[in-house]
């Protein structure tokens, strides 16, 4: 029998705008059509640079069979919501996210009993995003929330309605690169100027995760919302130990300015933050093992990044320390996303 897996990052997309229009009010649908709204490409990973010719658009009818052997549950991440980070019509972003969710709920969830939704939200209008979360609050097919990052750090009050709704329903919030970071005003800044090349973007994107992890801890979000979990998917993981040492060191020096942070930042990260490893990048397996060994045991979770995967589940898990393998493959995600992920009874 294959080892048990929970896939924390399985990308799904709507191949055509026509599929989303029925999930909007007529007036909004007319507006999308009138403005020749161009649907972000499903077969492109956000920030993916050139199109990957090999990656075909996933289809609900065949996707279940394409899950990695041993997969017990897969979190569906509608990555077409990510580009909203760079859009300016913020109400349209929310209508669009709502339509994506309804499309996933009706077309994908019934296709395989292992599928679970990550509720796509636009972070521009946090109150509307909270309403969208509330809509799925009692739906066992929804096991997480997913959104891109804005330039505003996650610790700032802008995001509080989203985080409060997430904590209310015990739904972890997954953040994922939008492909717009460092390139459009209003998205997270990457070091120096905007990266000119996709390669620079990929090498710098971890900075957005660091900024936001620091902000979540230092601004006390987890003190206000002790049930909240925030998951970083698509940012890598190899940078984390150094960041945690530094955050802890700064806390020892400057606790006076953040007295609500009563434990070292690495303790809050271990409790409230999770990292999805979807590929190893260029980190050699031996180095990955050493890095994973320096991190809290509950922190890392596997995600396939399908259909954009560059490493198989086995390649990623082989690069984990033996004592962590089952946790990264299954246990940590089961603990993080809770009972909704593995419940059998789905409508």
């Amino acid at each position, binding site marked *: 029998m294959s080892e048990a897996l929970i896939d924390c990052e399985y990308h799904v997309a709507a191949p055509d705008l026509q599929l989303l229009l029925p999930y909007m009010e007529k007036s909004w649908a007319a507006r999308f059509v009138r403005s020749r709204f161009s649907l972000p490409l499903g077969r492109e990973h956000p920030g993916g640079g050139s199109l990957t010719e090999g990656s075909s658009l996933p289809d609900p009818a065949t996707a279940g069979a394409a899950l990695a052997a041993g997969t017990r549950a897969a979190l569906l991440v509608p990555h077409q919501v990510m580009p909203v980070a760079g859009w300016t019509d913020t109400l349209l972003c929310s209508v669009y996210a709502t339509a994506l969710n309804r499309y996933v709920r009706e077309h994908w969830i019934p296709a395989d009993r292992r599928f679970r939704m990550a509720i796509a939200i636009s972070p521009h209008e946090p109150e509307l995003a909270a309403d969208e979360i509330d809509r799925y609050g009692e739906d066992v097919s929804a096991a997480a929330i997913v959104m891109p990052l804005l330039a505003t750090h996650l610790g700032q009050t802008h995001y509080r309605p989203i985080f409060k709704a997430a904590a209310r329903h015990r739904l972890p919030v997954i953040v994922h690169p939008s492909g717009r970071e460092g390139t459009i005003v209003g998205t997270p800044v990457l070091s120096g100027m905007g990266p000119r090349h996709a390669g620079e973007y990929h090498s710098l994107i971890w900075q957005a995760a660091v900024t936001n992890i620091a902000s979540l801890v230092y601004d*006390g979000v987890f003190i206000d919302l002790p049930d909240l979990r925030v998951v970083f998917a698509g940012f890598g993981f190899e940078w984390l130990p150094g960041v945690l040492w530094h955050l802890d060191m700064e806390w020892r020096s400057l606790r006076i300015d953040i007295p609500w942070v009563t434990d070292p930042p690495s303790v809050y990260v271990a409790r409230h933050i999770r990292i999805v490893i979807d590929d190893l990048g260029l980190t050699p397996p031996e180095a990955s093992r050493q890095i994973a060994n320096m991190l809290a045991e509950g922190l890392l979770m596997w995600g396939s990044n399908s259909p954009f995967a560059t490493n198989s589940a086995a390649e990623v898990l082989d690069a984990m320390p033996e004592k962590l393998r089952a946790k990264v493959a299954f246990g940590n995600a089961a603990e993080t996303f809770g009972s909704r992920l593995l419940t059998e009874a789905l409508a």
Partner: protein
Amino acid sequence: MDNDRVRAGVVDEFVLNRFRVVDTPAGAIGVVRTTDGFYAVLNRCPHMGAPVCVGTDLTTSTVASRPFEYRLAHEDRVVRCPWHRWEFRVDTGESIGNTTKARLLRFPVIVEGAEVFVQYRAARGAAARVKETPQ
């Protein structure tokens, strides 16, 4: 000079909350007068050995609160290291906010009439250099 104590000065020479550092066979010791009496600590930070008594006067810190509600506490009892700004209570030697298990090494102070002495052989607490690692 007694063989276990060193004179630190005359009471009136002490500015409230400001250390006077005296050399003793146990090393340099900072002696300070506060509103509830004299304290003395080794002038050596348990972190990396900075002269912990010469950064600032005894100062005040904050205690745990809701985010962004600052509450001042430990008024004029805080030794703040000039190097990495770790903070310790002058009376207990303990870290403020429990950021480290390391403590300041403390010594008894004896006031006889107008004269102030520090007992350098009677150290209390541990001054071992510490290494802190993430959990």
